[in-house]
């Protein structure tokens, strides 16, 4: 697994060998995973301005038709945990690792892993940016790393 490597934001780094669970793209989610494979992070926004993630066939607030919006790919750690026990393959070989809820600058949250950072350095409020890993053709998966040079406390 090479998702801890570098690579400019917007590019998608191929995984040497992807062993983690994969999404099963459906009618609604396929554009999200395809965009991620091109290095783009998509969220949804409806005509009334309600943003949401995960993608749905309707706006969860007003019931209208949501449209895709490219997100900045920046956010902060809203909360997190260090997973120290997980018997499932391949995660049991990657312990310990950080699972976080990232709050995007656009206001929606998504789950992800914090990489490129010692686990004892992760803090709530820490600014992070997305980097994509190519899991398979047409499926990029977003990971998060600290924004270089920015404060890590809030």
């Amino acid at each position, binding site marked *: 697994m090479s998702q801890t490597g570098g690579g400019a934001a917007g590019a998608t780094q191929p995984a040497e060998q992807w062993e983690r*669970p994969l999404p099963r793209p459906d009618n609604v989610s396929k554009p999200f995973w395809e965009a991620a494979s091109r290095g783009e992070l998509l969220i949804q926004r409806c005509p009334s301005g309600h943003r949401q993630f995960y993608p749905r066939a309707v706006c969860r607030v007003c019931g209208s038709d949501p449209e895709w919006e490219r997100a900045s790919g920046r956010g902060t750690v809203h*909360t997190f945990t260090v997973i*120290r026990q997980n018997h499932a393959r391949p995660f049991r070989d990657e312990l310990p690792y950080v*699972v976080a809820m990232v709050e995007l600058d656009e206001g929606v949250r998504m789950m992800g892993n914090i990489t490129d950072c010692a686990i004892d350095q992760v803090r709530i409020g820490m600014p992070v940016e997305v980097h994509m890993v190519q899991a398979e053709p047409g499926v990029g998966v977003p990971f998060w790393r600290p924004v270089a040079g920015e404060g890590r406390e809030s």
Partner: protein
Amino acid sequence: MPDRAPVIVGTGLSDYPQAPHLDGVQHHAQAMQRALADCGVPKDEIDGYLDAGGGGGMMIDDAVTMAEYLGIDHRYIDGTMTGGSSFEFHVQHAAAAIRQGLCDTVLITYGSDQLSRMGRGLGTGGLGRGVKRFGGPAQYEAPFGNSLVGSYAMAAQRHMHEFGTTSEQLAEIAVGVRELAGLNPDAMYRDPITVDDVVGSRLIADPLHKLDCCVISDGGGALVMTTAERARDLRQPPVYVLGAAGAQTHWNISQMPDFTDTAASRCGPVAFGQAGLTPADIDTIQFYDSFTITVLLLLEGLGFCGRGEGGAFVKEGHLRRSGDLPLNTDGGGLSSSHPGMRGIFLLIEAVRQLRGQAGAAQVPDCEVALACGSGGWLSCIGAVILGRDHPS
């Protein structure tokens, strides 16, 4: 007019915490037999059935399958599945159905062979080879290796960040529940523990330690509910449903709108309003203690203390055996049993207290008890207020 006030008249527990001789469906059956024997209702009098399923393992145990298996000739059926809080939702629904006359006598069952099944090496699909695929909302979480404990840990982490809650405060909850488990000869763990034991136990998902987590067990339970009118001829004193309400904020943890506020803050006031009571009127609480943080969030959400004050509140000792609000007097999920969906045991223990049948764990002069279940990942909260005396 017949008195259609809904009451719980029968309870039954199947063998726990470890029952390798029973599969999930057998737990349902044994619990039903014991609940019927408890109250003296003949099985053919049951005309309503509620079952969440989800505990059968290799055996299917959804509501319609189990109605067939147990031979329930129902005119009211409900398969509501909100995770561990399903049974609090079931009591809400059954109470309304009984009041309305949709049925007269209701059976609720649950059974799970979770522990023994794991021991037999079944259901551990995570150990298999090959990449797994997930559809639906899970596709946005599955690639990242979150765990069940991790979901609750993220709520605990946020609570600590916002309010300064400490691991020692959370540990106090586990210590108090273990003290009560010592009074339950069937509890899985009975030896006393200290706050140092809890915070010194292995971290599973920061900031939750091993002893912040519930046990994994086998077990099942059943409830029989009917009208106050019918209850007059039965073996046990009736326990009245004074209030019952439920609410949902999300299902998957990544959709939780506020990691320190559960649906308890929405359904609690409804249940208290129905009962005409306040938290100060409650004599014992039977709360879903999947993890210590679960109890803390329910206390705050239901108004036993202010938001963010849960840590200081538990440190004051209210929840102890000797406190004014004893918690989980059977030893809870933290120390006694947790077969996967524990909500029915909360109701059964509340009934045991209100009947005055709790032995060494009896709360003195117990008139009103609150059972509060949390299902999913702090997702669906159901609160049921039960009373010893007729509400009229």
